[in-house]
């Protein structure tokens, strides 16, 4: 049996997720024996022609050309897996979805008429069917290896569906909200990082995006009512690397409208 072929694709992103593959120092040589790495621009000049058995896609869609390119990638890929917050939720650049993109290009570039860009940064799944989404900013190396080995073995990848809170308890970390009153997105964020920030006394800031069916409204109401976090800060807390994930986006908008209503009431 010939080795399955693997392709790695980059859209608008920082390269951190595909670099995680190169950061799998101990496993990289083994991996290279098990799969034919056929398209991985970060590491190799060789480009085998498609189709590919597996495509890993990093980055979000921000230009008309990329909206075309991802359809091509889908058409030549057997299994398509998106990796990281950019690919699964539009990434940090989705913050521009809230603003006027013309204002951006005018601010940054002397000749904005040469900039061709879409108004929004969107996830891959908003453009083509995706077979599996691996979350994180960046993705965790062990999870990436789990996904690749599951595919090789023909089984479903095992990634945790629960909240960061569970990981916090497992490693015996003190709850930063209960003990220190620090706002934390752990209760609504998908596990995977090992509760890295709460273990160092920082609130979780949601790198892995929303868990399955998160109760975002309940958490944000309690942060507001009990810890005194104001609406603007709550909206900002939800608008980082996964700002365009539907659950985070909806709750941030709800906080915006509560703030707007209060503003109106006072004037």
């Amino acid at each position, binding site marked *: 049996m010939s080795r399955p072929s693997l392709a790695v694709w*980059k*859209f*608008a*992103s*920082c*390269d*951190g*997720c*595909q670099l*995680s593959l*190169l*950061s799998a*120092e*101990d496993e*990289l*040589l083994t991996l*290279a024996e098990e799969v034919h*790495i056929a398209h*991985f*621009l*970060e*590491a*190799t*000049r*060789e*480009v085998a022609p498609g189709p590919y058995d597996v495509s890993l896609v990093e980055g979000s869609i*921000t*230009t008309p*050309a*990329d909206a075309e*390119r991802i359809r091509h990638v889908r058409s030549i890929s057997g299994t398509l897996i998106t990796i990281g917050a950019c690919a699964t939720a539009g*990434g*940090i*650049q989705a*913050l*521009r979805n809230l*603003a006027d993109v013309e*204002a*951006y*290009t005018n*601010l*940054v*570039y*002397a000749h904005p008429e*040469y*900039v*061709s*860009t879409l108004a929004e940064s969107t996830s891959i799944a908003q453009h083509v069917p995706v077979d599996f989404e691996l979350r994180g*900013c*960046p993705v965790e190396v062990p999870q990436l290896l789990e996904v690749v080995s599951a595919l090789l073995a023909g089984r479903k990848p095992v990634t945790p569906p629960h909240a960061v809170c569970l990981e916090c308890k497992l490693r015996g970390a003190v709850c930063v909200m209960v003990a220190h009153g620090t706002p934390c997105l752990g209760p609504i964020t998908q596990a995977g990082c090992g509760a*890295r*920030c709460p273990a*160092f*006394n*920082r609130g979780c*800031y949601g*790198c892995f995006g929303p868990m399955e069916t998160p109760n975002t409204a309940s958490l944000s109401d309690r942060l507001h009512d009990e810890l005194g976090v104001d609406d603007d*800060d709550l909206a*900002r807390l939800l608008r*980082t690397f996964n700002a365009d994930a539907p659950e985070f986006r909806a709750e941030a908008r709800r906080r915006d409208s509560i703030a707007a209503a209060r503003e109106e009431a006072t004037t």
Partner: protein
Amino acid sequence: MHDIHVIDPVTRIEGHAKITLHLDDGGSIADARFHVTEFRGFEEFCRGRPLDEMPALTARTCGICPVSHLLAGAKATDALCAVRIPPPAVLQRRLANLGQIVQSHVLSFFHLSAPDLLLGMESDPAVRNVFGLMAAEPEIVRRGIRLRQFGQEVIASVAFDKIHGGGIVTGGVAEPFTTAKRDAVVGWLDEVHASALATWDLLWSVTDQFADEIAIFGDFDSLYLSHCLPDGTWEHIDGNLRITGADGQIVVDQFDPADYLELLGESGKTDSYLKAPYYKPYVDGDDPRPGMYRVGPLARINNAERFGTPEADARLALLRERFGRTATSAFLYHHARVLEVIASIERIAALMDDPELLTWPVRADAGVNALRGVGASEAPRGTLFHDYSVDRQGLITGVNLVIATGQNDLAINRTITDIARAYVHGPDDLTDGALNRIEAGVRAYDPCLSCSTHAVGQMPMVVELVAPDGEVIAHRRRD
């Protein structure tokens, strides 16, 4: 002005470096331009964010050198709070930056350039990559992988994570260093020091085979900008800036990076999403090229008299004996990188012996005390500036990022112009050999295009040959 209209949406493929070669009336190469074509918009979408989020937000500019953005961002926010960070935090940040220099340079050398250097520029492209090198020279690749792992673990010991870590924060670092972390780093030192020295031996042994490349690849006079201590010792994060000329003359010394706008202008290039800074005092008029300067490993070793560590200095002396006090060829960036890996490992070893590393407090606490703050550090690829403005509540009102690759842009253009003149003689002459050499010329600078665009590594390229009237008369694309 057809000849500047090169970011054509029809031909633009994001993730491709685009290069245009401009012909003069006689059909010879008049100019070559390197373009960057991705746009993410950090300068704008950071507006309205609280200042202490900035290190973590701007780290997402780049997954290759996130620590550089974490450090420059943290230093800029230190300036907004007008704090001097505690000494052990200074040491931890220095440690993280040394780890960053090691892992990034090792990635550049082993994963990207070694296949060209060790298998030969003319070898089969199907095996001329890190996986091909694994098959041919597994021990060398294993050494590279281990060296990079060391750098990443040093980073993680301070930043909690290899990529986008949260341990480097406004006012210092999040946690005191521990003896367990120190012992883990110390456990690596003998192996990685020996590996780094062996890497130098390998590079030095093949240097003679690349005499042509050394002569053609970006061997020209330019200014060099980097951090440097007053006594001429190599520096990578703290202190002030030095600029020297090709003759080794010091042009500016101990300049406060906070005042960088007095030194550097940013030319509004029409044809790239990369901003191209220049040295202001040398530019009079619209052409920024007289103000061309280079940053990164080559600039740092040219500006410094010495590394201040024994084995790195011994090899720096060898390089100077062969190529002169100032190394002017861009090809020698490879050598400068390996020297910096050795020096960084020796500096890390010295830090491990410093008892202050293990002390605390590690974080200064303060609110907004200044409305503008600039942070600078030496990223692996060169001097990085983060410039933030805030309102009285500490919310960001303005951001300017000046990245290393942008600062090398004028020099990269000059380099590929020289290479194109040597290897391209008309529309029928855009051969694979010419493309490979143009690519290798760009790669000598190890451009981190994520900081405004795409991956390093194999460089997907679009090369266009443009006639004086703007007509594209030849087009080669390599995916």
